């Protein structure tokens, strides 16, 4: 009988609120845990071998609390009046020093020092993880010698499990942040066992839009090439991603493409069930402040250059000049990303930010995010390019209008239920956003249309579709 194997490495290593890719792996794994008996879950160990996880360990990892285990300060949303407190300690020190510190270096150098500090913190984090891994290996050795089994941590308990041994009749799912963990491990497993492998294409941004992804183009080209030699099936989250991956394989001359299938993502159920009662006091305070007077417009997305926050900053500057205190608050929810140092500096220095009409929140709990969605006027998504656009889809799941850019994947994600505008068409964005801010009836009509026609898609459906596509292989 064929078995399913699921690589859970991404979920195990991700201890913050999940981003889209992490959510894909977690939701699929949770579905298989509940509905697919005999599924084997595994993790890549330090030698590149896949080790089976115990059922207890899998439940522990897939529990919501696993993603809320970051340092306590990370889980606290920013007070509106002082968004800076939401940011990392290194950033706060650097920004304080830029404003008030001794003028040892030119003020313009402080952002550089801050970025350097972040790099050092990242390296320190890597050092800590490496040390922990070494300790775990040592503990495992001791455990193997029978001396310290009673003291084994959950991690060492998982590592103590055996290597997986799938057969050619089985299916191995490798759908998380595989470029980070090493796509070569699944390739090696495939070569050694002949197992059918299913991989996932979340987007091809580093290849098609390298200007939005640092210097990741070449590593991602190799990553997707490795996938082509590994996977029997690559599922893509949208037709747009699938087409782009196919185009990439044509460009680099892959001789035999694996099967490419679109398996669209879903909106998380948990948000639909969220209630404001579960908010902590500080979260409730945030919600009250952003919703005061004219309410808020929401953009859920990593704060990075591709997401086109600059357009929104300029729009809100203009709205604030025109409307003063009647300007609604723009709430930006998401992690700090790449290439926005100058934008962040510009934003902090602006009157509209100082007036609290733009608020940035990081590491927001599901409950607060649900409340922000439920109470917003509408959402926006002016990104230059997306592989899918989970947050745009999520907005519709809450019955909220979303104004998006005309990136093809966003049109798929929103089922064509919101205005789609070119990301650089400033006048049209201004006109459309102003229209939906000011016209309650227009918003109500749009929301009624969404309620009537939006076809919600849940993670169970996504998981069933992904399993179905995999089973078609046999």
């Amino acid at each position, binding site marked *: 009988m064929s078995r399913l194997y699921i690589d859970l490495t991404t979920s195990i290593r991700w201890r913050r609120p999940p981003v889209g890719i992490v959510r894909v792996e977690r939701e699929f794994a949770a579905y298989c845990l509940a509905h697919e008996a005999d599924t084997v879950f595994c993790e890549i160990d330090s030698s590149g071998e896949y080790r089976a996880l115990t059922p207890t360990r899998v439940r522990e990892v897939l529990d919501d609390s696993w993603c809320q285990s970051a340092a306590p300060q990370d889980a606290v949303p920013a007070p509106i009046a002082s968004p800076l407190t939401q940011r990392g300690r290194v950033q706060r020190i650097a920004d304080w020093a830029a404003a008030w510190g001794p003028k040892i270096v030119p003020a313009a150098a402080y952002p550089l020092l801050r970025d350097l500090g972040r790099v050092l913190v990242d390296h320190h984090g890597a050092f800590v993880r490496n040390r922990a891994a070494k300790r775990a290996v040592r503990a495992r050795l001791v455990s193997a010698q029978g001396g310290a089994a009673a003291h084994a941590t959950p991690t060492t308990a998982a590592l103590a499990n055996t290597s997986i041994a799938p057969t050619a009749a089985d299916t191995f799912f490798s759908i998380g942040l595989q470029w980070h963990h090493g*796509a*070569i491990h699944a*390739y090696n497993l495939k*070569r050694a066992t002949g197992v059918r492998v299913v991989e996932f294409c979340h987007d091809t941004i580093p290849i098609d839009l390298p200007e939005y992804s640092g210097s990741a*183009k*070449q*590593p*991602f*080209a*190799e990553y997707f*090439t*490795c996938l*082509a*030699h590994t996977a029997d099936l690559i599922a893509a989250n949208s037709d747009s991603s699938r087409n782009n991956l196919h185009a990439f*394989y044509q*460009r*680099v*001359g*892959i*001789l035999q493409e694996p099967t490419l299938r679109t398996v669209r993502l879903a909106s998380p159920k948990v948000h639909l069930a969220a209630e404001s009662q579960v908010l902590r006091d500080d979260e409730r305070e945030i919600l009250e402040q952003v919703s005061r007077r004219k309410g808020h417009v929401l953009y859920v997305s990593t704060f990075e250059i591709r997401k086109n926050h600059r357009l929104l900053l300029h729009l809100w500057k203009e709205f604030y000049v025109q409307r003063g205190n009647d300007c609604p608050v723009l709430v930006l929810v998401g992690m700090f990303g790449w290439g926005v140092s100058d934008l962040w500096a510009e934003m902090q220095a602006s009157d509209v930010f100082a007036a609290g009409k733009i608020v940035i929140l990081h590491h927001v709990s599901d409950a607060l995010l649900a409340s922000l969605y439920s109470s917003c006027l509408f959402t926006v998504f002016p990104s230059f390019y997306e592989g899918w656009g989970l947050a745009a889809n999520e907005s519709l799941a809450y019955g909220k209008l979303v104004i998006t850019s005309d990136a093809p994947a966003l049109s798929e994600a929103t089922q064509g239920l919101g205005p789609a505008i070119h990301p650089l068409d400033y006048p049209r964005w201004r006109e459309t956003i102003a229209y939906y801010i000011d016209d309650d009836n227009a918003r109500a009509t749009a929301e009624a249309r969404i309620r009537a026609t939006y076809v919600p898609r849940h993670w169970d459906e996504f998981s069933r579709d992904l399993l179905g596509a995999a089973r078609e292989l046999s």
Partner: protein
Amino acid sequence: MRVIQLTTYPLKSPRHGGQLRCAAIRERYRQSGVDVETIAVMHEGQYRASERERNDIALPGSSKFWNLEHERFVDLQTGQCLAGDSHSYGLFAGLLERLRPDAIQLEQPWLYPAVKRYFADRRADSSARPRLIYSSQNIEWKLKRDERRSQAPGANAHALNVAQVEALEHEVVSQSDMIVACTQDELGELREMASDDMDAQPRLYVTAPNAIAPFEPDPDRLRGLKRRHGLDRFPLFVGSAHPPNADGFWEMLAPSLSFLRPDERIVVAGGVGHFLRNHAIYQSWSGINEPRLLVLGEIEREDLVALLHGAAAILLPITAGGGSNLKTAEAIYTGSPVVATTHALRGYGEASRWPTIAIADTPETFRRTLREMLDRDGATASAAYSDIRAAVTWERALTPLADALEALLKPRAR
């Protein structure tokens, strides 16, 4: 019978194709009882003194004839310098006077200006000139013309130099008593060049393709190389530091090496590695290409032989250039599977029909053919292959040349 062989590189320790060919010709002549002396003439900085033989002439680097801006024409300048620099020419003419050859064999046309001056001097003395043999390796002016695609801009100067090479080649051909080419096609071209000369004298024409000296691999070497570099089944590409080698490689393997699996690498032997990595096609997808190349650089002959015999496929993606390629002969000789362009097989007649050779003239077929070779179990050459192997040894390839030399010199034999 005495023959003076003129080259622009020493033959003491032959490594590159030209040296190997000239050394093989010298050896073959000697086997036929001909007294052969070689005079290699080169810029004093080109080879170490220890690499030169007793008759070799190192030209002074301070000579006005050098123009390093046109470094691809140093060989042309070498001939001009030898003829124009009175001290060097004196050494050269003195050697010829002392050795009194029956024939002078020019390996490539470069040193002809000095030979021409020597012949003029002999005419003034009313003495008979030795027979002149032009031993070509390419149609040089075309090769130089085509090199420009890989070189820096400078079209006018390049064209002028190419024109000089063309004129030189025509003159050498018209003055030669015997003409040797590597391939039938090139012999045809040289014959045509010679027919431009209305007062053409009767001359001999002979084809002598490039070949190799028999070699046998050392299995321990191969095992050691495989262990050291983590190799299993591997394709091999051998190329010198010559830009067209990299052009051909990427022309036939474009757009990238993505058809190779993540754990497969093309082993690159010879100086071409730097040119491969600087090529625009490499750089477009360097993330894919770099992990699929194992660039070894210049390696010992014994290691090269081991790799040639151990390769799952030998690549001959040659798309430009004249002559016939020693590396084609080496590849054929090993009996390993070979994927080659038609151009790579010029000069080897029926090679395209041989069992271990697959012809691929488009990037798509070249890549697919290589993929298939890597996917199937290594085919070994049959016992009958020994005849094919013999055809690419110097022994067989140079026999017509030795016979032609004998015919040329017979009436004058002392």
